């Protein structure tokens, strides 16, 4: 009922209602934007671009569906658009070079949000976007390939390299080493997992 009223206010372009909706979903949306961005500044930029889309299209929202999922989808799309708009010299590698490179598997204990965010934000833009889309937002490699206009192989290789880079960084983080247990488990079928898309 509460959110319904806010939404109907937003449809009428009422600023106070827009403020309420923004506040209500700020944390959730900022969470998405931060992991797709290099830092807070970029995240806030993506967040506001996303909310502008939300406010401009809220009349198209189907009230039968959960608003959170709709907002999240717009926010992820905005982050992807932002990535594409800023894409300059990103190269995609083919999966074949990296398919056999997994040497270690790591079982992680819970890490702090800040540390995880810092790790994701340290990735290069092309690794970060594929990792976010695949690992967190549930896109398949086919979808990623279509959305980013790359090959499925490139999507897989970027995911692979992103994971590899993350593992390296985790290993290098002294305080974190205590929190995780590294196990040799590289015989696991990596490629099978990669191809689940």
């Amino acid at each position, binding site marked *: 009922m509460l959110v319904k009223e806010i939404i109907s206010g937003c449809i009428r372009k009422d600023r106070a209602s827009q403020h309420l909706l923004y506040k209500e979903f700020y*944390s959730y949306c900022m969470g998405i934007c931060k992991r797709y961005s290099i830092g807070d500044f970029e995240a806030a930029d993506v967040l506001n671009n996303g909310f502008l889309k939300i406010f401009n299209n809220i009349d198209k929202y189907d009230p039968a569906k959960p608003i959170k999922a709709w907002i999240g989808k717009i926010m992820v799309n905005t982050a992807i658009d932002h990535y594409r708009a800023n894409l300059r010299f990103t190269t995609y590698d083919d999966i074949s070079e990296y398919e056999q490179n997994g040497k270690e598997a790591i079982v992680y204990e819970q890490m702090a949000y800040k540390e995880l965010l810092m790790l994701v934000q340290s990735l290069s833009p092309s690794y970060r976007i594929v990792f976010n889309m695949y690992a967190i937002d549930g896109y398949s490699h086919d979808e990623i390939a279509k959305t980013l206009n790359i090959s499925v192989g490139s999507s897989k290789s970027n995911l692979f390299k992103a994971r590899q880079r993350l593992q390296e960084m985790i290993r290098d983080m002294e305080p974190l080493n205590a929190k995780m247990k590294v196990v040799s488990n590289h015989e696991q079928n990596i490629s099978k997992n990669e191809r689940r898309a």
Partner: protein
Amino acid sequence: MKDEHNLDKLFKEGLDEIDIPFHEPDWAEMSKKLDQQDKKTIFPLWWSLCAAAAASILIFFIFFNTPKNNHTVSRIEKNQPLVAPKNALVDTLIHDDEKKPFIKNQAPIITDQHALANIPDSAIRNLQPVLSKVVIDGEGINSVSLAQLKTDGKLPAGLSIGKLRPSEKELRNSITPNRLSLTVMAAPDISSTSSSVSNKVSTNFGLMINYALTKKIGLSTGVIYAKKIYDYNGFGTSSSGYSAGPWQVNADCKVLDIPVNLNYQVFKKRSLAVNVSAGLSSYIMLNEKYQLTSGPASMVTNEEVTGNKYFMGIANFSVGVERKVNSRLSLGLQPFLKVPLTGIGKYEGNLSSAGISVLFNIKSLSNN
């Protein structure tokens, strides 16, 4: 379990659904963004209105402003029968009882066609003001001696100087119509926001100047003093602060409303006319008083703001019925609607107003 899956899971769980505290400056940026977008939508409307006004003026000049030159001469040539004795010419005489050109006898009574042809155009034009002041007394006369009028400046027997009664065509061409008129208006209205309609009546008083671009299209502007009383409410979503729980704003604002409207007369019969008008208003907020009731304890906060301005931020629409009382004064009733194109006031309420204006329209006193 696959290591990659574990890594994905670690990040998915660790990065999802995290509680990030609200950062107010981000909203300030967002608000600016929305303002910029609103401006972008307002300006095309403003420009299209200007373009419409410019187009109306252009149409007026092209289609309604027919050339007037040598009109008198051409009439004289067509209506030669009006000319009687030598060197005589009466064209603009009209009978006192009828508005038709004075033609006592349709049969040609002119005796000297050459004399007419010899009258220089300039002489005819010079004669016009003199003749236009001649009216017919009683039975009237058929003609006036041009020479007589020219030489002694006296009117022949049976003629007198009376009020100006030219023909309808002459009237159109020789007298510039009153283009300016003044309107005194008073209007009660109900102000509303997106969340509520005020139960109190707001008042408006104003003075408007109207300029007729054509017979049907006019432009009006002026100043309206308005007292806007409205409520605004919402539901808070945060656990603390002013937006926790329901909140309400009672606003009492004194506003100077400066409208620029384009009017179009859709219907006119005798003394009754129906007009529609549309335009934009700028609001200059003289004084804004807000009473904010919010928070779990229904805390009341009073705030006062001055000096806010909203340039062309409100769209005006109205339909008016006007009844002529006499040649100078007419009375009108005009239901109107004011729709905001931008957030108005401290809480940026979607403040719209609907009401009915009572108008006293006074035409300008001077004829040109």
